[in-house]
């Protein structure tokens, strides 16, 4: 017999005329909403409120265009973006790997977990964003201090979910694997890790956002490059449009990362029935 297998049918939503119609309506309503929102802001800033404080969409657009054509006060906007991205991605990867590994190991080691519980609770209660300032003192103005801030934010988000995921593993599945002949290690890799994967992914979505926040806050606290520096500088020069422009760039990056993660999740968790999971996170 060959290893050729019948592929499981993909669950697809039939695109009937009705659903297409529904979708068109959905997007038109969304478009109208954005136009009304930006239009009223523009109008209000031109006639009634002070654009110096509140800026306006056209000014923000000009600022963004300026950054991407002539560059910022600190050189090309791409350099700033890349620096921030590098810090965030590094922080995300280190924090997530550490969180997953420690979370799963602690989740399976009852005694160690009980010993560590109060310390973990305390560490989680520390306002971690403040650590950014401490890291600047420890690691200087360069890359390391920003990565460290991102790592700390990402780690706890991922750790708690991996820990919970490893604890909630179905007893029956573990027993069944043991009866079938699995060693302790095999139980870990073939049962515990896959069970915890949906939990872990739920946290990874929020975690990249945290990595970006960590990098930007780190830059904000002191840096010579990066989007956080642009925003800090805009604040220093009372440039509201610059703050908004920085915010928009960060938002776009976060959305792109979210999209990539969703692709990866759908690939890894193909076996799941089509339902949504959601993870509640806090920064």
């Amino acid at each position, binding site marked *: 017999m060959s290893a050729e297998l019948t592929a499981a049918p993909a669950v697809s939503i039939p695109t009937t005329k009705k659903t297409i119609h529904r979708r068109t309506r959905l997007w038109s309503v969304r478009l109208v909403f954005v136009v009304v929102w930006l239009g009223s802001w523009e109008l209000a800033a031109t006639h009634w409120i002070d654009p110096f404080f509140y800026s306006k969409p056209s000014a923000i657009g000009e600022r963004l265009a300026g950054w991407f054509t002539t560059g910022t006060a600190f050189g090309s906007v791409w350099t700033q973006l890349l620096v921030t991205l590098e810090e965030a991605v590094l922080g995300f990867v280190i924090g997530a790997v550490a969180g997953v590994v420690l979370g799963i190991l602690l989740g399976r080691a009852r005694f160690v977990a009980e010993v560590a519980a109060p310390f973990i609770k305390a560490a989680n209660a520390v306002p971690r964003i403040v650590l950014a300032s401490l890291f600047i003192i420890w690691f200087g103005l360069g890359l390391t201090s920003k990565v460290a801030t991102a790592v700390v934010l990402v780690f706890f988000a991922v750790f708690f979910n991996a820990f919970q995921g490893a604890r909630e593993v179905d007893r029956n599945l573990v*027993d069944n694997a043991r009866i079938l002949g699995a060693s302790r290690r095999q139980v870990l890799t073939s049962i515990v890790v896959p069970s915890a994967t949906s939990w872990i992914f739920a946290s990874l979505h929020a975690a990249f956002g945290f990595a970006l926040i960590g990098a930007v806050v780190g830059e904000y606290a002191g840096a010579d490059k990066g989007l956080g520096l642009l925003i800090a500088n805009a604040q220093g020069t009372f440039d509201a449009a610059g703050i908004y422009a920085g915010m928009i760039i960060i938002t776009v990056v976060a959305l792109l990362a979210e999209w990539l993660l969703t692709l990866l999740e759908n690939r890894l968790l193909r076996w799941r029935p089509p339902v949504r999971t959601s993870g509640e996170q806090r920064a």
Partner: protein
Amino acid sequence: MTVIALRNATKRFPGTGGQPHTAVRDLTFEVAAGEFVAVVGPTGCGKSTTLSLVSGLEPASSGEVEVDGAPVRGIPDGVGYMFQADAVMPWRSVIDNVAAGPRYRGLSKAEARTRAMVWVERVGLGPFAGYYPHQLSGGMRKRVALAQTLVNEPRILLMDEPFSALDVQTRQLMQDELLRLWQGTGAAVIFVTHDLEEAIALADRVVVMTSSPATVKAIFDVPLQRPRQVEEIRMTPEFVATYREIWESLRDEVARARQEVSRVG
């Protein structure tokens, strides 16, 4: 040759309010190689607990549980255990679920799959080999579990109500299939069921348990020839006579269990 032996085996669980809860007490019975023993008893009396003692997943609180003449410490060699609850891995396709045992025991992925495919087909799931559990019916998942257990060719087969989720036709099919697959393997079987007809149709001996905390009330021999055809055998006078005899014993226990439930709840 005796493969499984329980001697005054008792299991207590930590109950609510500090009082230990006795699930089974003073269980004594033996199962020989190649013997098929069915266990019947009222719901909640301790049938699953009995299997977990033999499988080594739960240690006995007192008394002895022996497999192959040695006291059970951990999971004995050659045990297959089909759980009452669903235990297939939702992230693995049917074939990879069935291939799990051979993989754990060191076979290569290709070898394990080849072996698994034979069993997937035997339980009638050939066309569904690539499906994930959530795409199967409850009865199909049970058959995955059966194939998963049998692919390891266990010498000691523990089955906890394996067919109770199946419809009548499929159940008869699976019962015949089980007898066919088991015959000549020399495996010792303990088969838990709440269906007395099923117990008699399949087993050499039927163990009747008392209501909770369970102990062995009586053991009946089933005087039916092998090989058996499950649907035909039900009509024979020997079957009917055996059924009457065992039901006489089981009825009191079921009634008592019911009274206890209504008193507690």
